[in-house]
């Protein structure tokens, strides 16, 4: 597991945040994550979009990343400087994409239920905990299956294949 501790401010989003609102299709003519990051959440209302700052942690409801397979969505999140996404559940293609591009994600319906907008969070990916500093409460992150840990430990799928060459 990555030896990283992520700290940031929780910014909440609702259920079914799809990849079209994360990065509208009209911007899929770039593969540069910084460029894509400029349009992060541009498909969502202005109020939701403008509240995000680099380092923030997305705390979303169920089915995050549904819809299109565009990996650009995971890249736009990274490009916007978002340090981690916590959601009640993830759509399957987005889940693979996030693992593959090294975007930290955690699935925890209980944590999502208790975290409030603006809470300070500390996520320890190696120990597997989400700590709500503001709320003074901790949640375990369900461990990844060993198979996926292999990809995460290598730093993504391409790195794993390079190691295996």
């Amino acid at each position, binding site marked *: 597991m990555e030896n990283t501790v992520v700290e940031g401010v929780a910014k909440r989003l609702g259920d079914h945040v799809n990849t079209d*609102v994360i990065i509208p299709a009209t911007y899929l003519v770039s593969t540069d994550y910084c460029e894509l990051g400029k349009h992060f959440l541009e*498909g969502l209302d202005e109020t939701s979009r403008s509240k995000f700052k680099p380092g923030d942690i997305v705390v979303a409801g169920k089915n995050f990343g549904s819809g299109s397979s565009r990996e650009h969505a995971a890249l736009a999140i990274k490009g916007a400087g978002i340090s981690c996404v916590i959601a009640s559940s993830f*759509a399957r*293609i987005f889940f693979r*994409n996030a693992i593959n*591009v090294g975007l930290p994600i955690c699935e925890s319906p209980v944590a999502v239920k208790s975290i409030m907008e603006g809470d300070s969070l500390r996520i320890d990916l190696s120990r597997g905990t989400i700590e709500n500093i503001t709320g003074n409460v901790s949640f375990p992150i369900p461990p990844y299956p060993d198979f996926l840990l292999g990809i995460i430990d290598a730093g993504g*799928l*391409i790195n794993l294949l*390079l190691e295996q060459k």
Partner: protein
Amino acid sequence: MSGSRVILREKAGRKSIKPGDFIEVPVDLVLANDVTAPLAIEEFGKLNMGVFNKEKIVLVLDHFTPNRDVASAEQCLFVREFANENEISHFYDGGNAGIEHVLLPEEGLISPGMIVVGGDSHTCTYGALGAFSTGMGSTDIAALMATGKTWFRVPEAINVVVNGKFRKWVGGKDLILYLIGKIGVDGATYYSLEFTGNGIENIDVEARLTIANMVVEAGAKNGLFPVDKKTIAYLSQLGVDSGEIAVEADEYGYSGVIELDISNLTPMVALPSLPSNVISVEEAPRVKLDQVVIGSCTNGRISDLREALEVISGMRVSKGLRLIVIPGSPRVYRQALNEGIIENFLEVGAVISPPTCGPCLGGHMGVLAAGEKALSTTNRNFVGRMGHIESEVYLCNPAVAAASALTGTITDPAEII
């Protein structure tokens, strides 16, 4: 029994697999388009490997083509150069290109029992022909182009038992919209949705392609139809041998069963902004429509165009409404020309678009302004999907789209003829 797991087990060369297992399988066909291929090719480049098999990679330039702008032209050029350098056999560009999920079956590239992985979420379409097919992102596609293998978590399966026969003006789109409305946009996340039952024999293959196409809108990994006489006949006229159809049980069964009697189904409409926001056409709000789109990987096949024309032929589209008709592939286009469908749509007042994904994803060829409303035979009605974030998309079948283009508001075809 789950047919999806049988295919995965066979390809993995294992005696048995169970839901939740992680397996590695060889893939029969790898697909990407002008949106997902550029990122995949960049990642592939980092591996410093050749393509695993130039006959098993399919690249289709269909999303922003004919090139929308300089940036999309550059992306297409990048894919074109890669295809040429690597002598990719199945590269579709210019006059050979169509909407990928309309194109691949027509090109005879899909057969039962295959595993197909595409850098496009609607790759699940090919389950209609008995293939295990699913969408993935560009990095997974990059790894596949190099190794020809990928990993899966073996899925649980939900059985959708279909009985009965569609009434007039009701079809595959209504079945899948109804199902998504019933189980929700994450109702089948990680599952296979497997369609069985006596009603399947009453559903034409093109309608099955429509149904399988949208299983991802319920979150499913894949959809699967049995291979029957209709499948074999459909594939045979495309020169595809269906092969041995081995249907055998595995011991894990289904995690859920949904019974659908399609005899009672009415035309359905999905209201903004989720495909699960489904109601019957007669309950739909009579909103003023600015645009109607008939096309896409969901409903851009010849049977869809025929159905729409049957409603609209000889009449005129409502004043101030733009009807855009998109034949899904060069073959559909040619067939529509030969049958007089294109001529008829021009008489009606439609715009005929070249085959492209274009407006479905708000790319080009029919993007909406703020406040505009479109009724569309496409697959997603998310916020801003077809353009401005204050525009709205309603989803329906081709007959409802055609009827509504005449009246300017959402209309049951039964009211027209």
